[in-house]
């Protein structure tokens, strides 16, 4: 049980680092959802299943969906995060003609 917990925590740290280092935003969102799923298991190991349920529903489900919808809306599922500042400039520029 102890090794299982250590493995889970190591994966958790790896996920947290990967989210901030991933270039593709879609991949980052999916890793973030995986992070929440592992966190839900960790909550159950810490004997607080109510937090586990909430984490699985909100962290892995709803917030991931909201991020995905946002990515779809600003067309960022394909591109890298390299030219993020250019896009934000462009978005600010032609907001009204876009809608």
């Amino acid at each position, binding site marked *: 049980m102890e090794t299982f917990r250590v493995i889970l925590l190591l994966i958790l740290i790896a996920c947290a680092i990967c989210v901030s280092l991933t270039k593709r935003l879609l991949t980052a969102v999916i890793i973030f959802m995986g992070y929440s799923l592992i966190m839900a298991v960790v909550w159950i190991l810490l004997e607080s299943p109510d937090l586990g349920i909430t984490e699985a529903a909100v962290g892995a*489900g709803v917030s991931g969906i909201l991020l995905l919808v946002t990515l779809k809306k600003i067309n960022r599922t394909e591109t890298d995060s390299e030219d993020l500042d*250019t896009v934000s400039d462009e978005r600010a520029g032609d907001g009204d003609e876009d809608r």
Partner: protein
Amino acid sequence: MKIDKEKFSAWLNTDPDRLSGMEEMAEIPYPPRERIKEKRHELEERIDAQPVGQISFLSRKFWHRLYTVFAVICCAVMTVVLLSTVAALPRFGEARDAINELTERYIVSGLKETGAVNIVAGIILDYRAFDTLGESFVLFCALNCVLILLRIDGDEDASHHELYFNLAHDDILRKSALFSIPIVFVYGIYVLLNGHLSPGGGFSGGAVIGAGIILLSIAYGERASGALISEKVFKTVCFCALAFYGVAKSYSFFTGANHLESIIKPGTPGEILSGGLILPLNIAVGMVVSCTIYGMYRMFKKGRF
């Protein structure tokens, strides 16, 4: 869409390719990537044309680097602070006396005073019920901010956004949703109603139900979920649930603080109708949370209900 004869005969003679027709339908009016590249070129040219342009471009890079450095420093400081806090806590599961007299009170007489077997529900919905009311209001305020920022007014056409994110005709999703949606709903309602007996409660159950409604909306289109929650239902449920919570808890705190006899009895611990006000309060919180979660999804996706 007119029928292409060549494509039709090709389809008839070879393997049926179901995707070939859909490419045309799914074509995005402006290829986003190309547009971004063009804009970038334009912007760079404009910056180069200006005499002070190069300085501002440099300074922007400088700010970028500064942001990165500050982000790393903030993360490191926060990590150190949180880790030192965790190190100062008592070890998990260890009984240490005189941390706080409240802990002992909760554990010893919590069941008798609140009537809830799940002592966490007893604490957050009885002893600390106004905290939970505040939490519900925070969620409600967050939804109001989302409404202010993302709502599209009037008859403005939002079908442009719908084009990018429409899975309503996906067979695999529909069939798997057909099996999982009832399970999700039943599980959410179970967690909600047994909040005072088993782990869970208003927030967890409401979040599960809200996620189920989102799944319904993704798999079967907005008309299916719109039949469940329309704008009017949303407003009514949020207002009534929050108002009921405030009034009911005010009553129980008023009687409790003045040593008056309350008409609400804790009941026999372990039964479904026990725990005094905890069950109705759980239901109220669950309704607010599920409506809020679905409303946020709706606003993010389309900008209206």
